[in-house]
């Protein structure tokens, strides 16, 4: 069970049950849809931009505990960040869950002990998703909201698919 607790950390379960910023944002300046056709997870991410920074962010949709918690914590993390900062966090987050070195970082955490890996440093609370690296089929769950965010930032009209 210790393995499972690495994946389903308390904070992840808590966010999945009570997601933050889980609402439609009709006045959003940008929004994008993300879809995982394999499991049916489906989210819309809404952004309200103020020049180059994210004044407000929200999401809606349905998905598993990992995808929903990831979306919830992403929205918390990104409020007030610039577009460039958001993209940088996305890269670091992706590196964390796939156990790859973050851009400009050293070797990945090959021993997989989940401690002190460089990419986790600037991720703050998002580091709880480090356990996903041991469940390769769940990486898409953890990154779906981030891919959707990326599409919204780019102003993409096409729904994002993880496949």
């Amino acid at each position, binding site marked *: *069970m210790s*393995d499972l607790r690495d994946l389903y950390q308390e904070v992840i379960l808590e966010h999945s049950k009570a997601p933050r910023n889980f609402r439609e944002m009709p006045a959003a300046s940008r929004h994008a849809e993300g879809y995982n056709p394999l499991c049916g997870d489906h989210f819309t991410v809404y952004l309200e931009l103020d020049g180059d920074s994210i004044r407000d962010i929200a999401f809606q949709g349905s998905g598993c505990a990992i995808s929903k918690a990831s979306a919830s914590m992403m929205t918390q993390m990104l409020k007030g960040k610039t577009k460039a900062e958001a993209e940088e966090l996305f890269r670091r987050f992706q590196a964390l869950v796939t156990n790859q070195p973050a851009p400009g970082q050293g070797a990945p955490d090959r021993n997989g002990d989940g401690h002190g890996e460089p990419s986790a440093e600037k991720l703050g609370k998002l580091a709880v998703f480090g356990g996903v690296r041991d469940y390769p089929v769940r990486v898409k769950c953890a990154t779906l909201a981030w891919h959707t965010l990326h599409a919204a930032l780019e102003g993409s009209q096409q729904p994002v698919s993880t496949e």
Partner: protein
Amino acid sequence: MSTVAKQQAGAPYASLERGSGFAVERVRGDFPILREQVHGHPLVYLDNAATSQKPQAVIDAIRNYYEHDNANIHRGVHFLSERATEEYERARSTAQQFVNAADTREIIFTRGTTEAINLVAQTYGRKHVAAGDEILVTAMEHHSNIVPWQLLCEEKGARLRVAPIDDRGELLVGEFEKLLGSRTKIVAIPHVSNALGTINPVGKLVELAHRWNAPVLVDGAQAAPHLPIDVRALGCDFYAFSGHKVYGPTGIGVLYGKAALLDAMPPYQGGGDMISSVTFEKTTYNKLPYKFEAGTPHVSGAIGLGAALDYVNGLGIGEIAAHEEELLAYATAALSAVPDIRLIGTAPHKAGVVSFVMDGIHPHDIGTILDQEGIAVRTGHHCAQPVMQRFNVPATVRASFALYNTKQEIEALVNGIRKVREVFA
């Protein structure tokens, strides 16, 4: 030595004496993979509707072919080619008997059910479906019995009609009947629904379709491992199934078609083996079934499938069905007793599939936690998104049973679900 001969000589695989009940522990010994450990637990394999495990007889038949018989078929004059051809054609006879077709000419080897359906859509369909015509399917189809017809409809300007199902997952036969008409050029239905387990009254549906002279294709992918199949009793015009779901290898399947229909159909793919003579001016096609088997076929796959069907016949499809029915009843009762579980697909007439959702917990999370307990289930939409939409769920957890599953494994599933609850408590 052929597989059949080997089985008769040594009887190395479990066979059942009539009336002795189903000796599931003995049968399990025939499947080497069932000895695997997963995350420190014995494997509990409940994803049989996706693919079944293979008995030693099938593994041996494939190995034996490559060790002793491998050659290209239908063209060599040498010894091995003759022997490989004989084995390949023997597998065709086995498949013919398995579905009770009248003639081996009516048995075409394909890559699987999907290719079989595409073959009919692209040959019979393209020839007979025109603008304004209709193709009738049901609301419980697998994507592979939807998309080939959609492609055809798009090309021809025809219309895909869908017969609805009720809240238990049963086809509304009255509605099906109303959708039939003079425009109906093809009817395509599943024998057993992969997502719900529903067994359809195929004989009745064929009779209704034939009143309008519409030929019926039956997607038998989920039926072949669980039910006796008799294409002549069903009266269907085409019947498709996959080898890998009936204990055979992947990459091989069967299309049964009535000889008169197959004869009148244009070929599917061009190439070697499907011709009788070729000049740059004109090619004449080979006779059935070779007209539809262009190129070197999956010889080892066909031989493996033959061995799988021999294995199933050895146990008796009736005995297998009875055992699985017991498992289904046991699992249905056990899962119904778990709070917060909703079964999706509760038709009175079902084959070994239990699909369910749990309040507040996504199927994907359930699947991951069960996997940590060594329990393999399928989570997702099961390539049947319209079924998910019909029941208003994004996905389900599906446990599907095979001849080697036990009540203890269903108990392990129920205990695994308790663990899911604990994690999400």
